[in-house]
């Protein structure tokens, strides 16, 4: 056990260690996240959006059933739902990346999207990245090959996805970088 004086001198002490993070995970915090983690985060988000869309669809059905009983309900076309899903996913990711830097899926997998300076994304960049990710999801596959774990979206928009298990908000990240 480190004595208090040794600890105070900085011995056996990592001043950057976030004590809220399990010790096993502290070493790789801030590193560029790999493909598997990001893929799972995206899957979680997409699943959530899909559930939401299903919920919306079910809600519409129930409402129609309640207020117009005996009336044949037209089932929404799958393409419509997918389009709405794309739109909602884009909106959701934009808001998530421009505010906290992470969506629910990203929070669950412990990753965060930041700019090349390590700050939160601006709204236009967040929108562009969200749309790009929704429109070309296969761009994530480049993270498998990229030496810096960058997806196509990261290469084009100069964004970075890092492991970040901490509860710090991007605002704090940005302010912490101010001199």
């Amino acid at each position, binding site marked *: *056990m*480190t004595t*208090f004086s040794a*600890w*105070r001198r900085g011995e056996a*002490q990592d*001043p*950057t*260690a*976030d*004590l*809220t993070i*399990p*010790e*096993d*995970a502290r070493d*790789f*915090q*801030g*590193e*560029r*996240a*790999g*493909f*598997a*983690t990001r893929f*799972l985060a995206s899957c979680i988000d997409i699943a959530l959006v899909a559930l939401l869309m299903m919920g919306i669809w079910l809600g519409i059905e129930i409402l129609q059933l309640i207020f117009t009983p005996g009336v044949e309900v037209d089932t929404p076309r799958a393409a419509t739902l997918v389009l709405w899903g794309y739109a909602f996913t884009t909106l959701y990711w934009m808001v998530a990346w421009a505010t906290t830097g992470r969506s629910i899926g990203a929070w*669950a*997998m*412990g990753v*965060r999207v*930041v700019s*090349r*300076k*390590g*700050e939160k994304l601006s709204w236009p960049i967040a929108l562009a990245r969200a749309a790009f990710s929704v429109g070309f999801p296969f761009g994530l596959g480049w993270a*498998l*090959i990229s*030496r*810096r*774990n960058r997806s196509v979206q990261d290469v084009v928009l100069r964004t*970075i996805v*890092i*492991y*970040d*298990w901490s509860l*710090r908000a991007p605002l704090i*990240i940005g302010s*912490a*970088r101010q001199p």
Partner: protein
Amino acid sequence: MDADDSRAEVILVVRPIDQDPAEGLRGLLNAMGAAMGSAMESAAHTALDVVSTVAGPPTSAVLDRVVPGVTDAVIQRIDITGLVIGRVDLRAIVMQALDRLDLTEIVLQRVDLRRVVEGALDSIDVTEIVLQRVDLVAVVDAVLDQMDLTELVEQRVDIDALVATVDLEPVIDRLPIVEIAEYVIEQTDLPAIIRQSTGGIAADAIDAVRLRSYATDVATARIIDRLLPRRGRKLDAPGEPESLTGGEQ
């Protein structure tokens, strides 16, 4: 009184000289001179006694008159002190006297040591003398070297009572309380304890999934890197904790 009664009797009495105590060497010499004079007088009386015994009472009567006068005249003409100093081995006499005397015993029996010491202490300032003549630091050092102060304090001092009188607030004011709290938190891994107690199964499951996912990332990257002609990956990024805390960019 018959004819025989007409003879006079001379009685020689040797008396100690009634004189004030001598002071110093002069006093000693005076005393010795007096002793010599007394000895000579005693010798004269002895000679007179012998003569009176041998020559009979008439002669003795004559000598009774003559000898004291002669002796006084001789004594007055002799510098007995000078004679003693020049002719007598005073050192030998004194040494022999000291050898024969038990001075310690004499002093113990005849001297009121208490009065002597009290008189001496009254006449001198012992504190001043000690301060001027004694190397107190050396004395204290020597004493401390011979003592086990820790043991002494443990045995003789009521430490609890002493500590009870201490005002701890100034001490606490000087303590880096926040640093101590941070130290305790870090050493006991308090966040882990809080996570375990409040997060429960869900938090553990999330941590496990995250760790598993990270391991998959590493393994996947390793496989890809083996297939491609390159050495590992550069995964450092801005926004990592070092850069967040204002450290190395």
